[in-house]
């Protein structure tokens, strides 16, 4: 199966670029942490997963980006990760399925899955509505414990500005 990125590439808009990129910035804007230089930033992978790190750098929430959700179309099934599973960055931890494609969800960083969003079992379309929402009723996929290695992995990911640039480039290719 293909990563989200690959599925998006298959159906990439050539004539227009339906890029949704305000939400991430907006979400970050309302977070009430005292931001330091190194944490509290939502990070993105090139495979279109996002992860938020908690203030104590021990836990995180992850999901797929709003850009990806928009591009995939109506999500009809979500294969959730397995609770308790320890995974490496890049491991396939689940999948999202739309009418036209199936995409792997990959772990953005090395971590242990502590909780999964069971709402998505009944309402997979929640991801289309609020992909980057980590609240109850949001489209987040899993909560995780971030390992030491995971913290290092995090440094390799994109911040919101870089991800925005990345998706624009994706749309134009």
């Amino acid at each position, binding site marked *: 199966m293909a*990563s989200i990125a690959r599925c998006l590439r298959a159906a990439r808009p050539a004539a227009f670029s339906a890029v949704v990129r305000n939400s991430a910035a907006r979400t970050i804007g309302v977070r009430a942490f005292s931001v330091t230089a190194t944490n509290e930033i939502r990070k993105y992978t090139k495979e279109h997963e996002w992860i938020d790190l908690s203030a104590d750098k021990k836990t995180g929430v992850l999901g797929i980006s709003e850009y990806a959700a928009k591009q995939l*179309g109506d999500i009809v099934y979500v294969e959730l990760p397995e609770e308790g599973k320890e995974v490496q960055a890049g491991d396939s931890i689940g999948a999202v399925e739309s*009418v036209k494609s199936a995409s792997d969800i*990959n772990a953005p960083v090395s971590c242990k899955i502590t909780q999964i969003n069971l709402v998505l079992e009944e309402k997979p379309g929640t991801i289309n509505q609020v992909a980057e929402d980590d609240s109850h009723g949001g489209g987040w996929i899993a909560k995780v414990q971030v390992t030491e290695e995971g913290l290092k992995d995090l440094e390799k990911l994109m911040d919101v500005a870089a991800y925005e640039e990345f998706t624009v480039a994706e749309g134009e290719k």
Partner: protein
Amino acid sequence: MQTSRSTALARALRGGVCRSPSQSAAGARRFSSRPGGVMATTSLLQHRPAKQQPLQPTTTLTTTVLRPLPQTRHASTTPSSSPPELQKTPLHDLHLAHGAKMVPFGGFHMPVQYSSLSVSQSHLFTRSHASLFDVSHMVQRVFSGPGAARFLQRVTPAGVEALGEHCSTLSCLLTTDAKGGIVDDAIITRLKEGRFYVVTNAACREKDDVYLEREMDKWNAEEGEEGGAVVEQEKWDGRGLVALQGPEAEGILARVLGEGEGLDLKKLLFGQSAFARLKLDGHLLSSPVLISRGGYTGEDGFEISIAGDETVGVTEALLAAGPEKVQLAGLGARDSLRLEAGMCLYGHDLDEATTPVEAGLSWIIPKERRTADAGYYGADVISSQLVAKSKGGSGVERRRVGLIVEGAPAREGVEIVSRAEEGKEAVKLGIVTSGCPSPSLGKNIAMGYVKDGFHKAGTEVDVLVRGRPRKAVVAKMPFVPTKYWKGDA
């Protein structure tokens, strides 16, 4: 009536989707509750082919990145998604103006969907109103000459000589190795005595060209000299072909039929065709277009072959019925619609190693051509397969079936296995060749091949999606009833 589609759709829509199903780390949490489920998983995993590596980022085919991040841990591949020199259909600019997402398909830039509707919405709109599909990438040819009908009866199992004027049939080109394999599927229409219109798949263009040229040369060398039963081919390259599909299709086409054409659409039945002029913008009339009643969605509808430079005009005239009645639709909806209608996609559900009988297409072979001496390639094998083993024939070892799948959709490449129960290990039965969530039914549908004996409707099997068994039941096709126009009953 079925028309065709090709390989690149799969690359676009299913491309890399399920070819090598990854064993997901997603665990058997919801699966362990089913007795035998875990055991089945275990025993099957032990027999997994080596290429399906567990828990490795084999599936993270990282995108071509403009600014590669240093030290990413994913294997970076740069697949060339567009082969060079893709062609454009006459409707290319119209697609772009309507916000199409274009993908390479069968050597053309083709729309996979449009900005106004998602694939599901477009699918459902087709079933409730009408959609217009550009299928100009498909290959249109005309075979003519005194030997044309008999020539076509050598390369296909169709009853071409018996075909009435302006009547069509689905058929297939057969491999010349006498094994009965399918080179391509095709719609054959008799335009008049000694003149046949044949539509084949875009993705098979080069292969079919070689096959048909070679076979025509052979035919003309054998038959042309003596009785003058020659066959010639015209290629209708550059012509447009659009499919208008859905319950509103007839009304939309009737609006633009030129007065005085004498064509009553109520009398044009499924599988029939006619030439007529259509009203363009203003007071202009088009050149005669070839209207064939049928399509690739299971709905009532028409496929309309149009002179290349009039294709935009005709399309705009059809779209002028209004967006509440007709919308443009792309390859995405076309694929899910044809799957609901139980129709095959060449290169996926059909190939050269598959015979029409295995493919559940015995119905395309008329009664009078079911004998070993019927004169088409592979008649010996095919006629024997048509008779069950119990009745002295060879029957078939595997058959194409429909499946309804619980939970995760099963897509191309997914293994079909027997249901593991106490004391019984799962064994491989076959493979899924097409599958998706059905927008009309809200269930996952699929088609694939299973061992003979497991093909009856209601047979319970499992499919291995991401390495885990999911329940599936063999189901009759079409999944959604077809609505072909066969006249006032």
